[in-house]
């Protein structure tokens, strides 16, 4: 592995600064798994890299930002408490393999099939609100999830979701017909009991599918893994 080590020796600094392009970072991480010297150096240099953000003059965020964030957190905390108090009945869900790169007619067909499944399973309309609720199709054993769509966003409430792989989080994507999946800022990890909530804010107009997959911690701009939860939205 010596030749390999020499090839990577200089990459540790760029790695801890987050300056390796994605493909190179992935290859370097493979090397790290086998090279104790590089691991030790990366840990050492990480201390310096982690001090960098503390060097600037500290600036206070505007109070309105806290109000916005806390409003969202309180809302999700309530939803979560509600979901815990009323556990849904266990249901066997159809499992489906999904590919991001299937040709469009196949996607349309699959969406139609999924939609049929959702309709057969019963589309629930949120009590009194203008929101629509959908069951999400899951490829994960046991996991279940529901999607609430409102005018200005969507909320996913999931149960029995397994922990994502190390270094990964779940990420929500939205997809409009004939378009590639669009990233959202909704990244989440389930709590210890497997429950999770995630909310997507923004215009849901024209969104046909909401998908959840696993991505590296900061999220990605294009999907790098297969979706595990899928909801097809009735128009």
């Amino acid at each position: 592995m010596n030749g390999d080590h020499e090839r990577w020796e200089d990459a540790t600094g760029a790695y801890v600064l987050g300056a390796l392009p994605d493909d190179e970072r992935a290859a370097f991480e493979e090397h790290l798994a086998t090279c104790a010297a590089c691991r030790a150096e990366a840990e050492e240099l990480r201390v310096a890299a982690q001090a960098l953000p503390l060097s600037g003059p500290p600036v206070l965020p505007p109070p309105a930002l806290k109000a916005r964030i806390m409003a969202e957190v309180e809302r999700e905390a309530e939803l979560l408490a509600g979901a815990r108090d009323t556990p849904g009945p266990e249901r066997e869900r159809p499992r489906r393999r999904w590919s991001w790169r299937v040709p469009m007619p196949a996607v349309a067909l699959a969406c139609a099939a999924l939609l049929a499944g959702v309709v057969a399973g019963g589309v629930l309309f949120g009590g009194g609100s203008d929101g629509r609720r959908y069951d999400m199709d899951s490829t994960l054993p046991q996991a279940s999830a529901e999607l609430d769509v409102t005018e200005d966003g969507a909320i996913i409430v999931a149960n029995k979701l397994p922990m994502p792989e190390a270094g990964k989080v779940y990420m929500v994507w939205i997809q409009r017909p004939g378009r590639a999946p669009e990233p959202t800022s909704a990244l989440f990890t389930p709590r210890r009991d497997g429950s999770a909530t995630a909310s997507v804010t923004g215009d849901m107009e024209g969104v046909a599918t909401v998908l959840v997959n696993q991505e590296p911690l900061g999220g990605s701009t294009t999907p790098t893994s297969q979706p595990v939860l899928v909801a097809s939205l009735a128009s």
Partner: protein
Amino acid sequence: MVVMDVRALADEDLIPLMARGDARAFEALYERHSGAAYSLAYRMVGARAVAEDVTQEAFLNLWRSGAHYDRVRGSVRSWILGIVHHRAIDALRRNAVHAKRRSDDETAAERLEAPDKVEDDVARRDEAAIVRNAMDVLPSDQLKVIELAYFGGYTHVEISELLDSPVGTVKGRMRLGLKKMREALSHGAVET
């Protein structure tokens, strides 16, 4: 009944509470770390509205991913700032901000003007001074590549194009500079 004030708890003890859905535990973490988080976001993206979005995304990510924190890998603050850093790089790469900045020659540090109220926490200011001292020991060519990478969100390939230096040189400067900084910090005793 005695009501525990979560604000008295250490970060590491707040995380499991937050992971169980305790909004007050999250709020305490926000109070402690939003200043450093927003400062970093603002320094990286250079625009208030974007910095607020980045900070919001990062803290909501913290709220939803709390169970993922592993204390072996560093402090809660470093973890939060790591999330902010990722989100800010995403924002830079998504936005035209990055393309626009490519044209000017100033370093990320020079771009900073204090826009909002500056935090008056003395410990935090002392800490910033220690880190800046550690950065001051670096030759300017090493500091520049480190700042462009960390605060500018550029990859080493982009930096080598920007500075017209070979990729190997850029990577070497990053590594050497961080080593020196690490050495200087070990004398200044900053806990990250």
